[in-house]
């Protein structure tokens, strides 16, 4: 039977069935319930929780624990994820698997604790220095907070990458009924990890490649991995796209609002549809291009709580159309009617 819980609590339930054994946390609103639930559930299920002295330390504890072969994670919000940028780059360079939850709040700087989706560029494009990507999942419900976190550990181990759960203050704070999966996943054998054993003594975890040739080969290998991820794990949801002339594209909380908006447009006889990326990296750019080139889509509206970060990616996928940017900032979240009003206004500006 379903249980009522916050998205943030659902993350921890998902992590446990996903096989996570080590959580290194640091408190920040609006993500703190994840650390609270982890501090409660991890120790009493024989797993490990540690509150780090900073997000910098937390991400480096993850570097160590992931290097030791564990399924490990943390959760934070924008200001904390900024601090983790260094560690995320090293983790990408050393090809370590881990899971990070970002419950987005408004920025820049300290900003406020209300929802924005303005960590999109930081998380989807990498975040730290160097040529790398994270896999990024964008849940839009408490159930997906659970399910995507559970799946994230398999994805992280399969590709040896960081998997982000890019959430927001509403998806994290909102309570919804959640069905907890009843099959528990575990880490595969990791022959590359440091096991403190004779078999793993030769292993080296590093991101240094001193010769330009070695660094180039390593970076091209990473690139091939990201291409493979695009072919294998790109994920999205479509609603009413078969005959949609007006296509809304949105993720997370704004996708929920757009669903209501699209339903109202349909009720008024407007052929509107919604494409909701469930992965932001890899991005469903091929599918968007298909809908534009082969379908009846005549206009695209990208609805985001930032100044058009994902709209840039949608525009790249659909160069023949002018993408409308419907943006809210500062923690303001539109109603479905406000989305429809702005969509009409933008359409009229053409």
């Amino acid at each position, binding site marked *: 039977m379903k249980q009522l819980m916050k998205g943030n609590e659902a993350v921890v339930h998902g992590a446990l069935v996903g096989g996570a054994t080590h959580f290194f946390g640091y408190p920040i609103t609006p993500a703190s319930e994840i650390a609270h639930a982890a501090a409660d559930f991890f120790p009493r299920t024989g*797993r490990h929780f540690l509150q780090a002295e900073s997000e910098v330390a937390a991400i480096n504890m993850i570097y160590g624990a992931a290097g030791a072969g564990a399924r490990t994670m943390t959760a934070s919000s924008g200001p904390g994820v900024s601090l983790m940028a260094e560690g995320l780059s090293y983790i990408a360079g050393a090809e370590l698997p881990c899971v990070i939850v970002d419950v987005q709040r408004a920025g820049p700087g300290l900003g406020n604790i209300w929802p924005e989706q303005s960590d999109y560029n930081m998380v989807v494009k990498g975040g730290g220095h160097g040529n790398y990507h994270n896999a990024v999942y964008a849940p839009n419900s408490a159930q997906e907070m659970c399910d995507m976190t559970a799946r994230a550990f398999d994805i992280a181990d399969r590709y040896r990458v960081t998997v982000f759960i890019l959430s927001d203050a509403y998806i994290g704070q909102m309570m919804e009924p959640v069905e907890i999966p*009843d099959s528990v996943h575990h880490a595969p054998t990791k022959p590359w990890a440091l096991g403190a054993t004779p078999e793993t003594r030769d292993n080296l*975890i590093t991101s240094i490649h001193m010769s330009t040739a070695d660094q180039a080969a390593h970076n091209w290998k990473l690139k091939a991995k990201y291409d493979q991820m695009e072919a294998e794990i790109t994920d999205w949801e479509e609603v009413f796209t078969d005959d949609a002339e007006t296509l809304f594209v949105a993720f997370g909380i704004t996708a929920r609002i757009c669903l209501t*908006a699209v339903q109202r447009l349909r009720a008024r006889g407007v052929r509107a549809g919604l494409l909701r990326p469930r992965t932001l990296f890899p991005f469903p750019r091929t599918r968007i291009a298909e809908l534009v080139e082969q379908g009846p889509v005549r206009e695209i509206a990208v609805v985001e709580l930032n100044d058009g970060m994902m709209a840039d990616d949608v525009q790249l996928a659909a160069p023949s159309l002018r993408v409308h940017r419907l943006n809210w900032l500062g923690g303001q979240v539109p109603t479905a009617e406000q989305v429809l009003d702005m969509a009409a206004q933008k359409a009229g500006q053409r």
Partner: protein
Amino acid sequence: MIKHKKPDAFYDTFERKGAGQQTTHYCPGCGHGTVHKMIAEAIDEFGVRDRTIFCSPVGCSVFAYYYFDTGNIQCAHGRAPAVATGMRRVHDDAVIISYQGDGDLAGIGTAEIIHAANRGENITVFFVNNAIYGMTGGQMAPTTLIGQHTLTTPTGRSAAIDGNPIGMCELISALSAPVYVERVSLGDGNRVLKARRAVRKALKNQIDGVGFSFVEILSPCPINWKLTPMDARKWLIENLEPAFPVKSFRDTGTPGAVATARATREPSRPIPDDELVKLLGSQSEIETIDRVTGLPEQRVKIAGFGGQGVLSAGILLANCAISEGLHATWLPSYGPEMRGGTANASVIVSEESIGSPLVDEPTTLIALNGPSIDAFEGSVVPGGLIVANSSLIDRGPARGDIRYCMIPASKIAQDIGFQGAANVVLLAAYAAIAGFPAIDILRRVIPHALKKKDLVDLNLQMVDAAVAFVAEHPVAAPSTAPQPIR
């Protein structure tokens, strides 16, 4: 005496060094080679090579993994103690060495070393202090002496501008958890022998599970000090040692001594999968009912003072929805504004999956106090319902196109014996009027939702009283026709 055979914990050839496989990458007269050898010999002596994990820092010793035939992990600048912590929490029997220089440990990584020490992590830290940044070519380190010339202190370090040299042993030994803190020197042969004993002890402590050990090694950097190797050792003794006293700061890890704090921690042993699944699913015990379909979407705003049970009333409502097999969302106002101020919760209940969880135009407003009805009365959809706590609201309805239930919830709750349950009175009144949630379901959910079980009976009495009140005071239809909903 110092052995001339290469320790087993070193690679025979330094294969990762390409062309220079037989040689070190360290400069002539550098102390790193000496310290490496002491550590390798200790690893050999204790027979722990297979379970040793060596954490390389950033700095000249970034390539320590060229030499050590152990597990190796290279860490970001200053972060090795955090990385070692992560490793330690996974592998209880690993021998984990964090090897760091002065810029790494005493500069950029100050927080990580202090907190790893303060947690008493059962790891061994070797801190090589040569009072200068070596790899980047000779800039000021946190341990650079006053007056010492470096590339970034070309006229000598000034206390007024750059601060004073940091004594890390002094800082670490101010904490209670570390069991062994010692500063040694590579100034001459006798000092090297003492250093060797310290390295050995620090490693032994970890193997014995005693706790956090920290050895600072004053080490020459002839190239960046711009001295010959021999002169550099002389300078070390004459200049570094007076600023950084060579001594034992703490040694509570020896057998028989009482450690101030120990890294005693039960190893993590995950519970079996079936127990985990049972634990995570165990909160759901309420019998469900199949309701008659046809419930219009309920968009409920519950508002009042913080502490009136606004959020918990919303959770109760959403839990009832689950028990009736319905979709539900609950969205709180949250954060600093909840502390002492007003609170509100948005609850949506629907037979269909729910889009936006925001309730800007409620079908029902449950107002626990005056400010709440003032704030949200205007937002209720025409034809909607307001259930208001007339005990705390001293005015009547302001609109003619919606229905009102003015119920003295605080007084009813107080009369029954628990004024804090006015929220339940209001919720039950809403249920009695709206037909959702079913009163029977509400009564079944309350015992599960309440943390204080001794209040269950009182809360059930609240439900009965509210139902009786609504029966006696039927809610009138709107006095004016509802406006069409947009």
